[in-house]
């Protein structure tokens, strides 16, 4: 308390500058009293005063001691440095503006990217003790998977129940299955995102409801009987007007009333980053009411991998690796117990925090984030090098001032501190402006976001993490670019500089290794940045160029779910026929088809065994996406049928089971054979289906993928109640949206129609992230180029200026202009070549490490390296040429007198 009081008084004293008058008076009184006493003892007046002063220990020293106690000396020196620094920056407004602007660009770029990384990768789930939560996935060594990044798969419900009952490693285990349900009761039926969850879900996460309660431990056991629901805070606030009496009210989901029992805490939207913030959670025992089609049929199959996810809380003190080992042992028991279903299957754990962006995608997304941060970090480093160089030049100009201060007794640390205060001021100002730039950049980035992110709970906020990050980056930046010039400035050769009258002297820059090093470093950094940006840009372009395999113009799609209205198969098939008939006959429509899979959206995958290579003989099945389609599908999508036939109305439930395979499917299973007439069956379904046609490859999961094997089945032989209507239009697809919607709803007014998109909209959504990444990389690459060009130009023109006298002398002694030009260009190019070579070496090493973790990018893409090297050489040449030309024009007489 007392220390604090004293501290405040001293702080106040510092701000006021410390009042010296009152103490001077007190001291004078002291001396007079002492002098008088001395006189009384018999000293002369002079002697008495002298003795009093000696005893005191000097007036000025005492005042100084007193002042130090009155104020906070450390702070006072800092304030002096600050005032002085501000004055210096004010005196050089041009320098200050350039410095702050380049720092702002560098820091702004870092903050912008960090904002995205923060929102997507560092956005910790709002749950208790997140590091102890792990996701458990199935790894299946027996089933072949052709899709990229699907090494970890979901878990079947029976297996989940066994793990939950018998594991030794979790305090408890929870399961969730993402679902879409139709919510009626509002003006128009609306689809909601949600999850079927085990009753343990909220318990394992360790969160408390904002209102009401969460599920009771046994509230997921009564099949079709636990009709209760928990709402997310956003759903409650946005769609239900924050109704305070919501608890106990019914909510009609898929035509069945559920009682609302609780509202989840604000900000919680499940365990998946990209999910909408509007969610509804329903006990898993309600699965038959909510799931449709295949998911429902296979739910209780041990073989099925349909369950969305399983996560648990590790027991205290248990490491994830130890838990995983224990679970793998359990997996071998389950394998022995159910050899037919579980053979080849084990489990793998991953931190739930990582799995939040998709357990198979985390590595890729984290790497992309790291790459982006690396690129903007390099841009900032280039800006730092520029500034260090500017400060060095300034330090040379200020040498006289600094020498004077040193001569007057300022210590080295004091001078370094002074210079660092100045660079810190610059970097903090740069950080502040950078934050403003990042705010604007974020808004621009955000305004281009596609609808699917608009719906998601991702929030690109400039939160405390971002602010702290910016502050730390700004401070580090100030140190990085300020330290070398400060140290250099602090040890000028005192006598020499003062004698030379503060002139830069004739120090040639060959003799200035520090500055040469900066040019080399700058060139190397620029090359690494540009090569990195170039390689990634290249690969993104490649990804976008990939053939879709179907005609994307004039195609409209929309989703609906008959399962939500509890249609049984007969009624569903009838609805499909009626819908196709009705839509086909409306104006502007060329052809119509219904398929189980939305375009570029993947689909339900099943394990396929070709005839003669089934599981009984120990063969591996292949997990293959299956699309159930109505006859006009290939015609509507314009996917060419290369062999055999398309489906037709003759393919009915009672006729022979048929299928159509993609060329990739044929290549995988029957290379060098005629696929027509070949037969196969799915796991758990021994029906032999015959391939009657082969179609060209088309995109299944994502643009840029390897051609995926896919099987098409007639909808009549493999009914699914949730489907996508594909409409090929003759004109603009937007024109038929209203009539199509009306046609479907005239068949059933309770039908919720969702995701009404043209393929071009879907494509722009799918390509938003790579396109944005490409634009940003191009922007940052340009920034790096600009900054390094400015920097190289700055160094070279400065050194040419420094050499003015030398050049004048040479020309006076008979050197030709060409010689001077050669001299200067030669100096610049030598450094450029060294810098670029160094950059290429580092880039090759660096890119090899990074690229090995990514796809379809080659680390040694010669065209990128050549283009970047040429570009930077041109920039360096220009940066040398301009000062060289200036040097050439120097009049020797003027130059010799130049100062």
């Amino acid at each position, binding site marked *: 308390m*007392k*220390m604090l*009081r*004293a501290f405040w*008084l*001293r702080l106040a004293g510092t701000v006021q500058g410390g009042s010296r008058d009152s*103490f001077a*008076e*007190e*001291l004078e*009184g*002291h001396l*007079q*009293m*002492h002098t*008088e*006493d001395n006189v009384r003892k018999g000293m002369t007046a002079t002697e008495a005063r002298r003795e009093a002063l*000696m*005893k*005191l*220990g*000097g007036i000025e*020293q*005492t005042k100084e*001691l*007193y002042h*130090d*106690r*009155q104020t906070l000396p450390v702070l006072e020196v800092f304030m002096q440095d600050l005032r002085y620094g501000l004055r210096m920056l004010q005196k050089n407004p041009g320098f200050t503006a350039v410095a702050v602007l380049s720092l702002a660009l560098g820091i702004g770029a870092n903050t912008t990217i960090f904002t995205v990384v923060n929102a997507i990768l560092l956005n910790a789930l709002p749950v208790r003790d997140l590091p102890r939560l792990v996701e458990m996935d199935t790894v299946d060594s027996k089933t072949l998977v052709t899709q990229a990044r699907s090494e970890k798969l979901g878990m079947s419900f029976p297996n989940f129940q066994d793990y939950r009952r018998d594991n030794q490693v979790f305090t408890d285990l929870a399961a969730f299955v993402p679902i879409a349900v139709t919510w009626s009761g509002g003006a128009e039926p609306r689809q909601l995102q949600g999850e079927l969850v085990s009753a343990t879900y909220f318990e394992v996460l360790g969160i408390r409801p904002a209102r009401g309660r969460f599920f009771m431990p046994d509230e997921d056991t009564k099949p079709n009987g636990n009709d209760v629901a928990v709402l997310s805070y956003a759903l409650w606030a946005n769609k239900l007007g924050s109704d305070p009496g919501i608890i106990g009210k019914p909510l009609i989901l898929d035509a069945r009333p559920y009682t609302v029992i609780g509202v989840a805490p604000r900000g919680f939207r499940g365990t998946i980053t990209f999910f909408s913030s509007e969610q509804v959670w329903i006990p898993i025992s309600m699965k038959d009411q909510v799931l449709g089609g295949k998911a429902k049929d296979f739910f209780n199959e041990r073989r099925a991998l349909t369950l969305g996810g399983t996560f648990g809380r590790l027991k205290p003190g248990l490491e994830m690796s130890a838990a995983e080992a224990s679970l793998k042992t359990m997996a071998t028991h389950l394998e022995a117990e159910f050899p037919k279903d579980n053979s080849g299957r084990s489990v793998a754990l991953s931190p739930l925090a990582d799995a939040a962006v998709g357990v198979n995608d985390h590595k890729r997304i984290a790497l992309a984030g790291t790459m982006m941060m690396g690129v903007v970090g390099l841009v900032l480093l280039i800006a730092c090098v520029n500034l260090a160089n500017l400060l060095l030049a300034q330090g040379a100009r200020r040498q006289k001032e600094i020498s004077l201060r040193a001569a007057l007794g300022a210590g080295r640390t004091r001078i370094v501190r002074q210079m660092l205060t100045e660079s810190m001021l610059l970097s903090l100002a740069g950080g502040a402006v950078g934050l403003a730039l990042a705010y604007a950049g974020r808004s621009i980035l955000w305004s281009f976001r596609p609808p699917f992110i608009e719906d998601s709970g991702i929030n690109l906020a400039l939160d405390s993490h971002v602010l702290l990050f910016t502050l730390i980056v700004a401070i580090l930046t100030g140190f990085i670019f300020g330290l070398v010039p400060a140290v250099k400035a602090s040890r000028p050769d005192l006598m020499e500089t003062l004698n030379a009258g503060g002139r830069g002297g004739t120090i040639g820059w060959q003799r200035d290794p520090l500055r040469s090093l900066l040019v080399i470093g700058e060139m190397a950094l620029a090359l690494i940045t540009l090569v990195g940006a170039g390689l990634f840009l290249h690969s993104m372009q490649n990804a976008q160029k990939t053939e879709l395999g179907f005609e994307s113009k004039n195609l409209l799609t929309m989703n609906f779910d008959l399962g939500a209205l509890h249609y049984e198969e007969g009624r569903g098939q009838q609805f499909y026929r009626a819908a196709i008939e009705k839509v086909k006959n409306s104006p502007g429509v060329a052809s119509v088809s219904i398929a189980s899979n939305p375009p570029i959206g993947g689909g339900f995958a099943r394990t396929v065994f070709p005839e003669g290579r089934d599981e009984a003989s120990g063969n591996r099945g292949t997990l293959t996406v299956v699309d159930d389609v109505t006859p006009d599908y290939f015609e509507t999508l314009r996917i060419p049928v290369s062999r055999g036939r398309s489906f037709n109305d003759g393919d009915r439930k009672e006729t022979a089971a048929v299928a159509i395979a993609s060329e990739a499917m044929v290549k995988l299973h029957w290379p060098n054979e005629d696929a027509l007439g070949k037969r196969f069956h799915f796991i758990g379904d021994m029906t032999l289906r015959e391939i009657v046609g082969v179609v060209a490859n088309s995109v299944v999961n994502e643009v840029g993928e390897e051609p995926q094997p896919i099987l098409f089945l007639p909808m009549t032989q493999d009914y699914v109640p949730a489907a996508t209507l594909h409409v090929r239009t003759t004109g603009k697809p937007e024109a038929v949206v209203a009539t199509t919607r009306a046609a479907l709803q005239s068949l059933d007014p309770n039908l919720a129609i969702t995701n009404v998109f043209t393929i071009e909209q879907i494509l722009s959504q799918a390509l938003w992230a790579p396109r944005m990444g490409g634009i940003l990389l191009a922007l940052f690459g340009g920034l790096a180029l600009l900054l390094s060009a400015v920097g190289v130009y700055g160094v070279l023109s400065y050194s040419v200026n420094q050499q003015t006298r030398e050049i004048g002398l040479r020309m006076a002694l008979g050197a030709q202009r060409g010689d001077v030009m050669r001299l200067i260009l030669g100096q610049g190019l030598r450094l450029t070549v060294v810098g670029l070579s160094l950059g290429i070496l580092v880039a090759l090493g660096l890119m090899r490490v990074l690229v090995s973790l990514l796809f379809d990018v080659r680390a040694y893409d010669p065209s990128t390296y050549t283009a970047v090297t040429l570009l930077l050489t041109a920039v360096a040449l220009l940066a040398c040429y301009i000062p060289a030309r200036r040097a050439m024009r120097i009049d020797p007489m003027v130059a010799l007198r130049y100062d």
Partner: protein
Amino acid sequence: MADKVDVWQGTLALMILKTLEALGPLHGYGIARRIEQTSGDLLAVNYGTLYPALLKLEQEGHIASEWGQSDNNRKAKYYKLTRAGRKFLDREERDWEQTTAILARFLAPGKESA
């Protein structure tokens, strides 16, 4: 080095407070003379160090000051003990006695065993 100064400052503070307790309100010169008389040569060379110490005690609220007239009609700043200062002094005195007692016990047998 710094420790020594701290000890010196702590001791000086205690002496100042004790002086003010014994003599009542007093100016800096008077305190200096009194300490010199009592402590011998301790403060002989440097009256100046007294003033930062007085300021520190005042900042901490142990003493208060006001301007007044000295015996020979000079304007002087008088320091006096505050209530908090009195309490602080009591505590410090006790601590100090304890410390010296313990140290004495350490130093005395130290000679024997050495």
